[in-house]
C-alpha cells in the first residue's frame, strides 16, 4: 500500500467517525439529557430527605427505601399491580387472538372488520376512561350499565365506588380491553398470515380435523414468536398502568386506597402537595428494579431473541 493510499484510508475512517457522531450525537445527547441525567438524579434523590426540593442536603441513606417497604400502602399498590396484570394479560391475549382468528376466516369485508376492531386503539386512554366513568358505568339509574340492570329488574350498582364485590375492576379491565384488544389483534393477524398454507394442506392430508386440532397443533405453535411479543408488550403496558386508573378513580380530594397501582401512589407521594421527592424517587428506583427483573426473567423464560433452530 502506497503512502497516499494509506492516507486516504485513514481519512475515510476519520470521516466515518465524524459522520457517526453527526448522526448518533444528537440522539445520544437527548438520551443522556432527558433519560440518563434524570434517572441518575432520581437515584441520587432517593438517598436524601427531599421535601419540596430537587437539590437536597440532608443525606438519609436507605431511610426512604426502608420507609417505603414498611409502608403498607406501597406494598398493597404492588399487589394491586399484580392482580391487574393477572387479569388483563390473559384476557387481552385471549380476546385479541380470538378476534384475529375470526377476522382471518372472513371471506368478505375483512378490511372493514379489521378497521372496526382496530379503531379503539386510536382513542385516548383519558377520553375512554371518562366515558366509562361518566356515561357507561356511572352509579346512577340512567347510566348505561344500570339502565340494562334496570330492564332486568335489578338495583343500580355504584360501579366505581363499591368495594364488595370489587366492581371497579370490571370497569378498569373492560376499558383497557376495549382500547388495546384491536391493536394486538393486528399483530396476531400478521402472524396468522405468515403461516404457510402448505402446513394446513399437509395437516389435512394427514387427517387432522379442522378446528381445535388444527389450531392446537399448527396455528398456535406457529404463532409462538407473535405470542411472545404480545405477552411482553402486555406486561410492560400493565406496568405503566396509570391513565385509566387515575381518571376513573381519582377525585379532587385524592385517590381511594383500593386499585391504586404503584405509579398512582408515587404520583401522590412525590407530586401534588406531598412533594416528597426523595421517597418518590426511592419508589421509582424500586419499580425500575422490579420491571428489570421481570423483563429479564420473562425474556429468559420465553427465549426471546433465540434463533428458531435452537
Amino acid at each position, binding site marked *: 500500500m502506497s503512502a497516499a493510499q494509506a492516507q486516504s484510508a485513514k481519512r475515510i475512517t476519520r470521516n466515518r467517525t465524524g459522520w457517526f457522531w453527526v448522526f448518533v450525537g444528537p440522539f445520544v445527547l437527548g438520551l443522556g439529557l432527558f433519560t440518563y441525567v434524570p434517572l441518575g438524579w432520581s437515584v441520587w434523590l432517593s438517598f436524601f430527605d427531599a*421535601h*419540596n*426540593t*430537587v437539590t437536597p442536603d440532608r443525606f438519609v441513606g436507605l431511610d426512604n427505601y426502608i420507609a417505603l417497604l414498611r409502608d*403498607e*400502602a406501597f406494598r398493597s399498590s404492588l399487589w394491586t399491580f399484580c392482580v391487574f396484570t393477572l387479569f388483563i394479560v390473559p384476557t387481552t391475549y385471549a380476546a385479541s387472538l380470538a378476534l384475529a382468528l375470526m377476522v382471518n376466516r372472513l371471506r368478505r369485508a375483512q378490511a372493514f372488520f379489521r378497521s372496526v376492531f382496530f379503531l379503539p386503539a386510536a382513542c385516548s386512554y383519558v377520553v375512554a376512561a371518562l366515558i366509562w366513568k*361518566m*356515561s357507561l*358505568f*356511572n*352509579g*346512577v*339509574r*340512567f*347510566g348505561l350499565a344500570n339502565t340494562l340492570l334496570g330492564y332486568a329488574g335489578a*338495583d343500580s350498582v*355504584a*360501579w*366505581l*365506588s*363499591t*368495594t*364488595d364485590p370489587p366492581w371497579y375492576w370490571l370497569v378498569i379491565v373492560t376499558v383497557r380491553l376495549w382500547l388495546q384488544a384491536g391493536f394486538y389483534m393486528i399483530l396476531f393477524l400478521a402472524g396468522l398470515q405468515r403461516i404457510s398454507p402448505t402446513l394446513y394442506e399437509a395437516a389435512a392430508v394427514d387427517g387432522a380435523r379442522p378446528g381445535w386440532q388444527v389450531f392446537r397443533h399448527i396455528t398456535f405453535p406457529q404463532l409462538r414468536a407473535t405470542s411472545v411479543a404480545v405477552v411482553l408488550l402486555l406486561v410492560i403496558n400493565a406496568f405503566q398502568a396509570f391513565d385509566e386508573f387515575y381518571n376513573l378513580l381519582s*377525585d*379532587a*380530594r*385524592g385517590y*381511594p*386506597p*383500593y386499585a391504586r397501582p404503584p405509579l398512582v401512589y408515587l404520583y*401522590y*407521594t412525590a*407530586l*401534588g*402537595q*406531598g*412533594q*416528597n421527592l426523595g421517597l418518590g424517587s426511592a419508589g421509582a428506583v424500586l419499580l425500575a428494579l422490579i420491571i428489570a427483573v421481570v423483563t429479564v426473567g420473562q425474556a429468559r423464560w420465553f427465549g426471546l431473541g433465540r434463533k428458531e433452530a435452537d
Partner: protein
Amino acid sequence: MTISRRGLLATGAAVGLLTACGSDTGRGGAGESGSGPALSQWYHQYGEQGTEQAVKKYAAAYKKARVAVQWRPGNYDQQTAAALLTTSGPDVFEVNGPSLDQIQGKQVADLTELFEGVKDDFNPAVLAPKTYDGRIWGIPQVIDMQMLFYRKSLLEDAGVRPPRTLDELVDTAAKLTDKEVKGLFLGNDAGAGVLGGTPLYAAGLSLVTDDGKVGFDDPAAARALGKLHQLYADKSLLLGAPADWSDPSAFLQGLTAMQWSGLWALPAVQKALGDDFGVLPFPKDGADGAPSVPVGAYSAAVSTRSAHQEAGKDFLKWLWIERTDYQEDFALGYGFHIPARISLAKRADKLKDGAAADAVRFTTEHGYAQPLLWTPAAQTAYQDALNRIIKDGANPESELKKVVRRVSAELARVTSK
C-alpha cells in the same frame, strides 16, 4: 337551573377546548400595565364567570409594577409545587396553603409586616393555618366553607326533621332513601375525601391539637367514624353520580334529598329550588360534640425565588390589604365566598339573610380549618383509613390506631425542624 348531563358534558368539552387554546407564555399579554418591575401572578381556574376578567382588572389598576396574570386550569397545586422549584415560576401566586413543607422549605416569603394594624380584621380561623412560628406566610383572600344542603319538601314528605345529631343523620338518610332517590350524597367516594376531619370535630375532637399532638386518639373518634359506615351499609348514600359533591347537580336533579357541598353552590341551589331547601352544619356526635363546618381559604403568597420579592409584597399589600373594594368584589361579585376580612363580611348585604346568613353563622360558630401541621402524608393515611372504615366496614379502632401512629411520626418529623 337544571343541568342536563349532556349539557354539562358539552360545556365541559367546550371549556376544555377553549382552555387548551390558551397561551402559556408566562409574561406579557393581558392584564399587564403600569411601570416598574414585571411581576407574574398565578391564580387557579375559578369556575365562576367573570372572575378571570376581574383579577386582570385589579392587576391592570396597579401602577407600581407591571403585573401579568396567569389563569391556570388543571392541577393547580401540582403546577405551583413544581414551578416553585425553579426560577421560572410565579412571583406572586395564590395557594391552597401555603403548606408547612413550603414554609419550612423557605419557598414562600414572610408577609407578617404587611398585616400591621389590620391583623385583627382577618378571620382568625383562616389566618391560623397561614401562621407558623408566629409569622404569617400568606394573605387569606376569601373564605370557603362546606355545609349540608337538604330539600325541605322531601323531608316533610318523609315526616322527618332536619338532623341535629349524627345518629339522626343516619336515620334520616335511611328514611329518605327509595328506589329513585338516595338520602344523602357525600361525594362519589362515600365521603372519605370531602368529610376529612369534619366528623372528628363534630365529636369534639380535632385533627391536631394546639400543642402539636394527634387530636383524635380517643374512643369517640372510632364511634363517630363507625356511624359513617352505617350510612354506607344502609345504602342511603348516593354513589357514582356524574358530577361530584362540589357540584350541586345531583341535588338539583333530584338524585338525592341531602347533599354535602359548599357555599359556592348556594346561588345555583337558590335559583333552582327557591325556598325549598335549607342548610345545616355537620351534626354533632356524642355528649362532648358540637356541630362543625370546614372552612378554608386560598391565600396570596410571594415566591422566594422571585427576583422582585419586595415589589411582589407591595403589590399583595395593595391588593389584599388596602383595596377592600376589590376584596369585596372578588368575594361576592362572581361566585359566592365569605370575605376573609371580618369588617367586609359584616357589611355585605348578600350575606345578611336566608341560607347565606346561616352559612356565615356556621362559619363563625362552628368553623374549623385544617391545621397547618396536618401534612399531605397524614391526610393520605387518614383518608385511606376512613375509606376502609366507610366502605369495607373495617374496624374503626384498629384503623385509627394505625393512623395515629403514622400521624405521630409525621408530626415528629415536622416539629423537629
